């Protein structure tokens, strides 16, 4: 039994992404959700399953605002930035079980105007341990905790900051082509190198944005998806993976391996495709280093060879593997990777702002909560 082709992305929706708003996260989440439902050609009352991103709107908010008469399933997938893609697996499981036909996955946040990341991490129960043993020493924010992984990779494999800069530069260029990106001014490797140091070896331009906005997708059962408004984007393979020592990076046997290393082989096997079949990849990019590490963990290159893999514009629209064609969390907006799923669906429908010509098969990853990973491989119907 497998979830292969059990369902499809049938609707995608976003708000305008901003750096500054007086709107509530709930309002943004509901607007994006309505956009996704409309894009699918559905009515809000057609939604019979809900997987909202944690710490935001709850199922009750959707029932209240959308008048859903008979919600059959609700859940959250508490994996930080891996949640959005992990929610696809959860949605397909309940669809395959016959519980739901149309599952709405959504997020709304005011990361720029509301609580910043340092504060958010301190309040999350999965970080109780590092809250007690690491934060009092001043190791508080993801950039500090992940910088230790990046430094280890550099020392072990000779990876350089200039190689990481390639990711920032390429992603910003893609954002410059996207009308709904918040940071559109192209940058160079020298700009990256000159940007101030935040958590050495991570510069400011290695770090993702804090953003305000909402983002949502609808996953529908395969038998319904073929008769809906847009060309369905079929999920061929999906998986989540949790790293060893999931909360305390310090205690992880290999600092340079993430949960995605466990998930990716399962997703590729389920999909029945290989790396050379992937036309476009939307890879969770909270930090440049995390993109490179995931490319290794998925097997696009060997562990330690990520630095040379990404050099010379390899991740650009005409490169060997177009990555984060919407501008990602680094330059479009930080929507916890929900926007990566939206972009993959648009690429495979052929309606992206920066379109990879004739993209047929692509993948999207999630990464969060100190190392959790998720991946979905999709194809154009």
């Amino acid at each position, binding site marked *: 039994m497998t979830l292969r082709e059990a369902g499809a992305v049938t609707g995608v929706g976003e708000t305008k992404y901003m750096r500054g708003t007086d709107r509530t996260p709930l309002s943004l989440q509901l607007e994006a959700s309505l956009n996704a439902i409309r894009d699918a050609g559905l009515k809000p009352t057609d939604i019979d399953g809900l997987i909202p991103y944690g710490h935001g709107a709850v199922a009750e908010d959707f029932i209240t605002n959308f008048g859903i008469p008979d919600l059959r399933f609700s859940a959250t997938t508490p994996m930080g930035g891996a949640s959005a893609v992990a929610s696809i697996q959860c949605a397909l499981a309940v669809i395959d079980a016959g519980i739901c036909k149309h599952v709405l996955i959504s997020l709304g946040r005011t990361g720029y105007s509301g609580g910043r990341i340092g504060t958010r991490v301190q309040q999350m129960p999965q970080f109780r*341990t590092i*809250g007690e043993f690491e934060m*009092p*020493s*001043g190791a*508080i924010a993801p950039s500090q905790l992940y910088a*230790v992984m990046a430094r280890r990779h550099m020392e072990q494999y000779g990876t350089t900051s200039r190689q990481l800069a390639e990711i920032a530069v390429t992603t910003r260029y893609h954002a410059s082509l996207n009308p709904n990106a918040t940071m559109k001014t192209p940058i160079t490797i020298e700009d990256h190198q000159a940007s101030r140091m935040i*958590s050495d070896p991570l510069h400011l331009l290695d770090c993702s944005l804090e953003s305000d906005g909402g983002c949502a997708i609808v996953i529908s059962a395969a038998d319904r998806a073929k008769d809906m408004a847009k060309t369905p984007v079929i999920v061929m393979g999906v998986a989540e993976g949790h790293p060893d020592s999931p909360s305390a990076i310090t*205690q992880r046997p290999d*600092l340079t391996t993430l949960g995605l290393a466990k998930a990716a082989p399962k997703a590729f096997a389920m999909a029945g495709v290989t790396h050379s079949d992937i036309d476009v990849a939307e890879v969770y990019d909270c930090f440049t280093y995390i993109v490179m590490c995931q490319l290794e963990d998925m097997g696009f290159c060997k562990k330690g060879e990520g630095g040379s893999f990404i050099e010379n514009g390899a991740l650009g629209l005409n490169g060997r593997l177009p990555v984060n064609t919407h501008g990602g969390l680094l330059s479009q907006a930080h929507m916890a990777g929900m926007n990566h799923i939206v972009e993959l669906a648009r690429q495979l429908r052929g309606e992206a702002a920066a379109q990879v010509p004739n993209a047929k098969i692509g993948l999207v990853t999630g990464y969060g909560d100190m190392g959790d990973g998720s991946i979905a491989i999709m194809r154009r119907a």
Partner: protein
Amino acid sequence: MDGYDKLVPSPTPDTQPYWDGLAEGRLRLQRCGDCHKIRHYPRPVCPSCYSMNVEWVDATGRGTVHSWTITHYAFHPGFKGDLPYVLVTVDLDEGVRMQAQARGIDTSQLRVGLPVKVAYEKVKDDLTLPVFVLA
């Protein structure tokens, strides 16, 4: 008010012996009461044999640098005055790791394998934190 404005731990009965040890100038680690495997950070169950019998042992406090980061931006206002500060992740001789601030280590000296040892800083009446110095 004692004026200490940084993040402080909230020890539990499972972890209190660690903090009590630091206050006495000892680095104490949990050891399984049955299979005797040392683990860190403290937790109720041994992940090797699932025993809930816990012993506490004094560590040597010695180890080598596994990785590090230099913090240039304060994500909590209490740490602003410390910038920039070095956080080292250390392989302890007992086979587990810990992370703490470095003291008296020049950033140019930082390398994987650098020998270090733990030291103790009493930051307020009821809190002593570990730091690492050159061994």
